[in-house]
Structure formats: C-alpha cells, structure tokens
C-alpha cells in the first residue's frame, strides 16, 4: 500500500504529461521543429531501433571506458592524497577549481591531438569529467574516520596499512559510490555531447545533430530518447553495483 502511494504520483504525472504533450502538439498544430508529438517520436524510435541500438553501443562503450579509467584514477589519487597531508591540502582546492570549468570544451583540443578517427578523445574527456566527483568524494570518505573506530584500533595497536585496510577503505565505500553515481551519469553526458564538438561521429550525439540538420526532428528526438535510456541504464547499473558491494546499507538514495 505504501509502495503504491510512493509510486502513484510520479507515474500518474508522467502519463498525464505525455497525454497533455500529445494533445497540445496535435490540436495546437505545432510544427515538428518546435516540438514533435510523442507518438511521432515513438514511431521513429521503433523504426530506427537498429540505428539507435548501434549508436547507443558506441556511446555506451565510450562512456564505460571513460568511467572506468576516471574512477580508477580518482580513487588512486584520493588514496595518495589522503596519505600525504600536503598533497590533499593542495589538491582539494585545485580539484574544486578545475571542476568549475567547462571540461567538455577540451574536446576539440583532444581531437586535434589524436587522429580524427580515434575514439580516445571522447573517452579522455569522459574520464576527466568522471575523475573529479570520484576524487573529491573518495577523499572525503578516506579522511572522515569515526573517532571511536580510531580509538578502538589504537587500543588494538593496529595502525598503518592494517588500519587503512580494515577501517578507512570500507568506511570510504559509501562515499566512493556517491561520487560514482554522479560520475556514471556525467560519463554518458560527456560521451554523447563530446560529438557535438567534432571528431569521430559514430555515437548518439552525431546522430542527433545529423538528424536535426536534415530537419528530421522526430528522428532526432528518438535518438535523444535513446541517449536518455543509456543514461538511465548507467545510473541504475551503478545503483545495483552499490547494492551488491554494500549489503549492509538499507537505504541507497539518501
């Protein structure tokens, strides 16, 4: 019963919004280049599903590679920074500053540095964007240690690597996942949008721009829906991973 109360409002709202959208477009006779009807978008999505699938795979792979290396780099950098106080003092403000810049704007430069047929620039950009939330959150988790745990381990005469292995790392895991949740979505966004800046055009981003250039707007929207589904997939996969890695957590989204 409680579940129904929780799920009903957003589901009902979603259905209502779709119906209202459809009616407004068809009755108001709004041109497709302003806003296509959901029915038209659905039609295109079904017709183009093979293309959508292939483009989603390409973008998904780019996002995954970027997510993987960005996360590894972020966690390792956080471990290094938590070990050396000076390093963390310097790197946290720097990371905060760098995160405020539009990193996606690096895409054209990276395209120049590698060949135009390389997937590496998009994966690099995605990885850089992923690095910062993972780094900042993991570092916070590594530094925040429950004082009671610290005293307990001192009473056991256990320090150094033992302390890190038994207390710091497991305690930091929730923080790592906080960063990972943001990072997984950012990776997809980066992988898709990086194509707007040129470079190899085999993913969803290029399909969207080319469909828009051909004024096939319902098709373009269909690819956008594909991109949204890809983003959702990554986010839900991260939630699932979180559930598996931290069986002691009862709530996943605070």
């Amino acid at each position, binding site marked *: 019963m409680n579940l129904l109360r929780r799920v009903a409002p957003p589901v009902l709202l979603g259905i209502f919004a779709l119906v209202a959208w459809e009616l407004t477009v068809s009755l108001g006779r709004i041109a497709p280049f302003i806003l296509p009807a959901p029915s038209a978008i659905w039609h295109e999505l079904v017709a183009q599903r093979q293309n959508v699938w292939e483009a989603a795979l390409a973008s998904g792979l780019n996002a995954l590679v970027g997510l993987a290396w960005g996360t590894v780099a972020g966690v390792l950098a956080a471990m290094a920074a938590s070990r050396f106080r000076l390093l963390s003092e310097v790197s946290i403000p720097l990371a905060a500053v760098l995160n405020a*810049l539009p990193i996606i704007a690096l895409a054209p*430069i990276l395209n120049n*540095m590698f060949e135009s047929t390389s997937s590496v620039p998009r994966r690099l950009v995605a990885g850089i964007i992923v690095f910062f939330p993972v780094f900042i959150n993991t570092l916070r988790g590594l530094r925040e240690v429950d004082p009671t745990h610290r005293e307990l381990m001192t009473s056991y005469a256990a320090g150094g690597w033992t302390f890190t292995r038994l207390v710091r790392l497991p305690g930091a895991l929730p923080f790592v996942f906080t960063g990972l949740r943001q990072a997984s979505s950012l990776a997809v966004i980066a992988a898709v949008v990086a194509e707007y800046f040129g470079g190899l055009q085999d993913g969803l981003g290029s399909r969207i721009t080319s469909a*828009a250039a051909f004024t096939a707007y319902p098709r373009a929207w269909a690819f956008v829906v594909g991109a949204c589904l890809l983003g959702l997939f990554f*986010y839900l996969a991260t939630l699932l991973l979180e559930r598996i890695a931290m069986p002691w957590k009862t709530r996943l*989204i605070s």
Partner: protein
Amino acid sequence: MRRVLSAVLGLVVLIALWEGYKAVGNPDGTVLFGVRVLPRADDLSMPHVSDMLSRLGRPELTGGRPVWQVVLSASLFTLGITTAGFLAGAVVGLLLAVAMQRFRVIERGLLPYVILSQTVPLVALAPLIAGWSGTVWPEWTTVAVIAAYLAFFPVAVGMLRGLQSPQAAGVELMRSYAAGWWRTLIKLRLPASLPYLFPALRLAGAAAVVGAVVGEISTGTRGGIGRLIIEYSREATSDPAKVYTAMLGAALLGLVVAALVTLLELPLMRHRRRVSVVTM
C-alpha cells in the same frame, strides 16, 4: 588565500607536465595495439605554453583585432547569457523547491523526475531546441534556456534538502509559537537551507556554463565563446595555438561564474558550518 595558492601551484604543475611531455614524448605519439594512447608531442598538436600565451597578443586574422580582445569579448558575451540562464534556472529551482516542501504530493510526483533528469543527457536536446531560435524568440534566448535548464536541477534538489534540513525539534518549536507555514519558512527553513543552497548553486553555475557553451555550438550563435572554440579548432592545422586561447576564455568563464557564487556566499555564510550536498 591558501586555496588561491594551491590552485596556482596546481597550474604550475600542469604546465610542467605539459612541457615535460613535449620534451620526452614521441613526436608521433605512442601507439599501443594499434590505438594511439598518447598524443603527438610535436608543435602542431601540442603547442608550447609560451606559444599559446603569445598568440593572445597577436591579431586574430591578418590585420584584425588581437586574439585576446576577441576571446575576452566572446567570453563576456557568453557570460551574459550564462548569467541570465543561471538566474532564471535558479529562481525556478528555488520556487519549485519551496512548492515541493509545502506540498508532499508535489514532491512525490516531481522529485523522481528531477533527480532522474540529472542522470540523463538532457543537454543533448540542445540542437533540437535550436529550431526555436528566430521564430519563438531570439537566438541567444535559446542558449539561455539551455543554461537555465541545466542549472535548474541541482538548485531544486539542493534547496529542497536544505528546506527539509531543520530538525523536528525546531519545527515543533515554531508550531508551539503558532507560526504558520509562511513564517516558519522565512524564519526557520530559509536560513537553515543556506548551507545546502550554495554548494548546489556552485554546481548549477558550472552546469549553466556547460549548457551555454554547448548551446552556442548547437545553435551556431555568433559572438560567444562556444562558436569561437569551434571556429578556431577548424583552423588548428594551420594555427595550432589559437584554439588554446579560446580554451582559456572558456576556463575564465567557468572561474568567473564560480567566483560570483562564492562572492555571494561570503556575507551570507559567515559563522555557518559547511555541509556536503548530494543532489542525486
């Protein structure tokens, strides 16, 4: 002060890494298993930092204005659009957060969509909204709308968390004073939400900058830094250092927006503790 110093130190390290790689790196790049994993280290692909800086001083095209002037005016143009979009998105986000706090049913209905919207690349819609330019409203407004759109979500979620942050004891206290919803909002919830609002505003500011840049590229808006980046990158083979000057402009834009939010924060957050905000 320490933050500025560390940022500068980090910048020095980055420059050292760049020049260092150029010194030791293979001019043709490094290829592993047929995939180029390290970029070419020659001057065409990776100009010297000094080249980038000197390029700022020289004219854009033969006989034109110096590059730094062009980049600066483009950055200012985009700054204006970003600010407009950021303000609009932040205001709408704030209003929605207040509505969600007031009416649980609105929260239950909308919050899942707001959170999920941050997980999907909605900015991918930018080329599609480009069609609204010229017919529905001027070009720059489309870009501002995209920026507003991206800024809206973190503000809505962060502000909601802030409004919900007061402990039960505080809320009950206001009830005991027979203070209605509005007065509780003004005297308790709004002040309590500030530590949550500012981190969200910083996120929203960065998002607005990205939205504006991507929006400019998708709509082809002239005069902004986004357009400049694309133009200069097309000339990269003949004029490699120029695109980096445009990068500097974009970076400057991001810094200015972040600084503006921090400036706003300083007087309002004195003596307040910091909070870490999770918006998804």
